[in-house]
């Protein structure tokens, strides 16, 4: 067992060196595929993060109360709302605080504009923070059934749109990535098929001498895996380098206009390396198994 394992690995490396050009071609084609995949992955993850951040700003439901509604009535409403599993937290916002916040936020430069106001036009409200933007609608519906409320407000349009965007983005990216994986398996199996085809005489001879199918397959499989590992290292290295450059030069600007950061390089490096290793190894292994099938069918 150990002997054949040693043989398999030795044989794989020998063949990789003797078929140098083919090896380089295979490594390049897998690397190229992984790079494209990786770029898509980076874009998806970053857009996902941005969407999550934006979602955070819109996940509150405001219940505006009638002026007659007492604080005690509001308290019972709040207790009921807090009992809902979708709700993260609830707090009471009285009209004076609301006005102060509003003027400070929107009219910081000329807050004195509102000083002469005879009556505070804003209502008291209960601010509900939901755990998930998707459940905002449910919470709002429950709140609407309460007595003594003026209206329930939440960012319905924005919420719907954001949800649709992030959902669409996720499925779209999944489809594109799955497609790319299939393409890379095809490309790699074709590249390896060339090697196998160039060596089909050899395979035939091996069978005549009495080699089992797995004995013949072993070195080719190992070759595929080694090619996959090389490509994974090469492409993740390149991608991490590119990404760190991009983060360095763009993250400032992006923060400024989108209010979200980029996914940190260290986190990306770790994930990219293991994802690429897994992908590279399986692409290499699948490629060699697929391309050998035809030559080993007896």
């Amino acid at each position: 067992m150990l002997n054949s394992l040693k043989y398999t690995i030795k044989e794989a490396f020998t063949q990789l060196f003797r078929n140098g050009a083919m090896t380089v071609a295979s490594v390049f084609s897998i690397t190229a595929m992984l790079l494209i995949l990786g770029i898509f992955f980076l874009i998806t993850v970053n857009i996902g993060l941005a969407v999550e951040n934006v979602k955070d700003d819109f996940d509150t439901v405001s219940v505006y109360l009638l002026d007659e509604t007492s604080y005690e009535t509001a308290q019972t409403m709040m207790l009921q709302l807090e009992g809902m599993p979708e709700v993260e937290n609830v707090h009471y916002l009285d009209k004076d605080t609301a006005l102060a916040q509003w003027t400070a936020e929107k009219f910081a430069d000329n807050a004195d504009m509102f000083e002469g106001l005879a009556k505070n036009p804003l209502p008291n409200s209960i601010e509900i923070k939901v755990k998930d933007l998707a459940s905002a609608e449910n919470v709002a519906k429950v709140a609407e059934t309460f007595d003594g409320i003026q209206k329930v407000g939440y960012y319905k349009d924005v919420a719907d749109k954001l949800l649709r965007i992030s959902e669409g983005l996720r499925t779209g990216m999944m489809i594109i990535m799955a497609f790319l994986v299939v393409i890379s398996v095809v490309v790699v199996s074709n590249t390896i098929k060339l090697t196998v085809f160039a060596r089909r005489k050899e395979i035939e001879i091996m069978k005549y001498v009495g080699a089992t199918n797995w004995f013949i397959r072993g070195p080719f499989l190992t070759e595929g895996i080694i090619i996959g590992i090389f490509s994974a290292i090469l492409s993740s290295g390149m991608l991490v380098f590119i990404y760190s450059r991009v983060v360095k030069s763009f993250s400032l600007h992006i923060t400024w206009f989108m209010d979200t950061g980029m996914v940190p390089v260290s986190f990306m490096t770790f994930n990219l390396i293991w994802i690429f290793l897994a992908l590279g190894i399986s692409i290499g292994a699948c490629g060699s198994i697929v391309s050998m099938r035809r030559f080993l069918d007896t």
Partner: protein
Amino acid sequence: MIVFDNVTKNYNTNIGLDHVSVRIKKGDFVFLVGPSGAGKSTFVRLVLKEIEPDEGRIFVNGLEVNTLTNRLIPKLRRSTGIVFQDFRLLPNKTVFENVAFAMEITHQTARQIRRQVPQVLGLVGISIKADKYPNQLAGGEQQRVAIARALVNNPTVLIADEPTGNLDPDTSWEIMRLLEQINLRGTTILMVTHAKDIVDKMGKRVIAIEKGKIVRDEYGDYGYKEEEAHSHRGAYIGGGYNKHA
């Protein structure tokens, strides 16, 4: 030991073998002769389980070939050394590696390989070329390597499919002397050939096949006249023995 018991093999409408029964004992040296398309290759391919018989039973080294599962084919082929007209050496491997390969597939240790391979290379007289690649060798030398590869696992049967077909007469005789020497060590040899002069001079058992039937099985000579042998040469390459004869 090879036993054919009433074996029939048809290719669509063409007859390959027609109710053939034959027994080749351990230690025999047998020539299989006959015109092209008579069924010689069918015979060899049946022994190696490359094809399945339509009828009858085949035994090789005590294994019943017909009922052998695909998983056991490698075992069968390891117990029968095979030598081809076109040598069939692995081009990317040196002489040493080509012979070592036959041992590697049987999971033998590096130490066994280092001991056994030089011994076999010595037996076939090719030791000094151990580090050369097949394309750096002459035809006769390549055939010696092929024989070494076939012998390295000590098979009980050595099948030689026109082993001298691509060689000049002098080299052919060297190979024949080598095969005879191997036979003396106890290995059964089944040799398919068209080389009349070789068969005549060796004086071994000759099985002649024609149109799928065994027409003659006796010790002695080739049995066909020179012209017949020529007319049936068909896909024969090289034809060295022809000029010689």
